């Protein structure tokens, strides 16, 4: 009966309830929608970083991070069975070995400093951006493929084109200059011009041949299940490759790591700010409802209803309002985010944000954690905000409440 009265009371002042429900719905929609956009932006920055080459975790020979040259190589994988076993486990979604050294690329017109990356083309698929970003020519076919993959911007700067020859120059392990001519076999395009100008890719065996290096590699990059939850994988990788430097993407790119932390804090503050605006409306609505029903509350108290039931009745009304508002808000969020699953064109502002890793298409990212947090903030704090009017109602003295009736 208490629930029935609470439910019917909710619809007594239909217009007021609908306004309040709309406010709750729009509030939760705003929380989820804005957070999805912000998360989408940060995800894009992180994905750009991870896909560019970092992966979730990287393994390097000690000293390589300070001097990324061919002198610092990891031993071949077949000499590390523990690491081989880990890389074959379900925890590792993808992994690849690379040789990564500074080099100079020269066309007949210009010269640029780049990073030469020798890759295993098959393993690199699903780990980094390269295979999916080829717009002219073709991706490397094997570790022995002796063609180069260049970024479109670098090709423009070198004033060369697909199938033309360029010369790569680097240092071998004995610090002697080594150089060789290559044909441009593919051109890739990415959202970041910096990526297009920074890297040149070739088959890993081709690079070994150029550098006259042994079977070692500069780095092993691997992807785990979730970039936010790498503690276990990091620990296992460090244990399996105790001879090497093991770092996560957060350590490789501290700027993005700190941005992620700031974003989490910002999301919570954003939720609370929206809730505070909502709470005034909620408390006001309930206070008005209690005030308008003073006589009724006095009546039901006179009939013998205990104050705790009156408190419960007002809280049920509040919970019902919050739950309906939250449901509508979540559905609204879903309806507005779903059509944008392929992204929003933000090309008008993307060039200004490119330095941060943003592309011209922003894909809203709805995280379960954010949706749960937004709903929990509104429900729990909404309930707390309702306690005051509910408590006021339950503390009414029957004779004072009912006096308007009896006299």
């Amino acid at each position, binding site marked *: 009966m208490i629930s029935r009265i609470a439910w019917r009371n909710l619809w*007594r002042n239909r217009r007021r309830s609908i306004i309040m429900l709309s406010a709750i719905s729009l509030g939760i929609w705003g929380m989820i929608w804005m957070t999805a956009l912000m998360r989408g932006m940060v995800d894009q920055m992180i994905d750009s970083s991870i896909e560019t080459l970092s992966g979730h975790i990287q393994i390097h020979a000690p000293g390589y991070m300070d001097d990324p040259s061919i002198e610092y190589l990891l031993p071949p994988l077949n000499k590390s069975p523990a690491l081989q076993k880990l890389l074959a486990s379900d925890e590792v979604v993808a992994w690849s070995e690379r040789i990564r050294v500074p080099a100079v690329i020269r066309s007949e017109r210009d010269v640029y400093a780049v990073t030469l990356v020798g890759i295993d083309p098959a393993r690199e698929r699903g780990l980094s951006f390269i295979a999916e970003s080829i717009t002219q020519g073709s991706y490397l076919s094997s570790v022995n493929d002796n063609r180069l993959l260049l970024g479109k911007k670098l090709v423009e700067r070198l004033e060369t084109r697909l199938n033309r020859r360029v010369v790569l120059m680097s240092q071998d392990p004995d610090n002697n200059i080594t150089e060789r001519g290559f044909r441009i076999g593919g051109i890739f395009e990415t959202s970041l011009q910096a990526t297009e100008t920074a890297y040149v890719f070739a088959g890993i065996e081709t690079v070994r041949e150029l550098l006259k290096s042994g079977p070692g590699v500069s780095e092993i990059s691997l992807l785990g299940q979730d970039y936010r939850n790498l503690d276990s994988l990091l620990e296992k990788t460090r244990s399996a490759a105790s001879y090497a430097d093991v770092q996560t993407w957060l350590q490789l790119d501290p700027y993005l790591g700190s941005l992620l932390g700031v974003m989490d804090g910002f999301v919570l503050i954003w939720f609370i700010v929206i809730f505070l605006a909502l709470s005034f409306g909620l408390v006001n609505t309930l206070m008005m409802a209690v005030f308008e029903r003073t006589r009724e509350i006095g009546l*039901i108290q006179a009939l013998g209803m205990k104050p705790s039931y009156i408190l419960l009745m007002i809280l049920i009304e509040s919970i019902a309002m919050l739950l309906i508002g939250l449901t509508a808000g979540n559905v609204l969020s879903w309806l507005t985010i779903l059509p944008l699953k392929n992204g929003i064109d933000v090309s008008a502002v993307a060039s200004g944000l490119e330095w941060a890793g943003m592309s011209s298409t922003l894909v809203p990212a709805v995280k379960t954690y954010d949706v749960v947090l937004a709903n929990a903030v509104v429900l729990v704090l909404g309930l707390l905000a309702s306690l005051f009017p509910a408590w006021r109602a339950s503390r009414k003295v029957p004779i004072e409440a*009912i006096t308007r*009736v*009896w006299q």
Partner: protein
Amino acid sequence: MKNTAVECHHLDKVFKQGNLSVNALTGIDIEILSGEFVCLSGPSGSGKTTLLNMVGGLDQPTAGEITVAGQRLDTMTALQRADLRLHHIGFVFQAYNLIPVLSARENVEFVMQLQGIEEKHRRSQALEILDQVGLSRMENRRPAELSGGQQQRVAVARAIVSRPELILADEPTANLDSANSDNLMELMRELNSNSRTTFIISTHDEGVMKFAKRLVRLHDGRIVGDESVES
């Protein structure tokens, strides 16, 4: 042996209004036996409503003792008084008697539900009592869909449905025309005769007083007359 339904000894009630003290009741001594049909009469401000509030446990006396259904009301906590009201006292107010969002039947069931009576029994009791007060076809109507007289009948039905020892009615006919007023009073008299429930009704309406078996007159917070009436 006669059972006492209500007993008041040296009952005083003083209302404070700023620096002013108003003596609403002074030295009230009264004993009402089970099954009596008592009218409290007197002009406005005579203390009828205040006395009903004290007897109903809605307000506390400044001094004196009140015993209802064998229990001392003046020493009870608010929760104990709520419990006494729930199980031993039925109320009929002057207006705004019903919960607007509940139907006539649900209003009648309300007290029984608070008492923890199971739904099936509750429903049949409510329908039976609504039939008894002449509202058998109106059980699903909300208060706004009932006339003033019908609303008061529902209130009476709610008051008597759980068979309390005592029913307190404060000016129950104040908003009714004379025909509806007479019908309601006849109904209450009939219920009193059939169930032996004690009724205490406050009124200043001569038309209501004619239904009283005992008439207690109040003036300026004191009992100035107490007589049995042959009606």
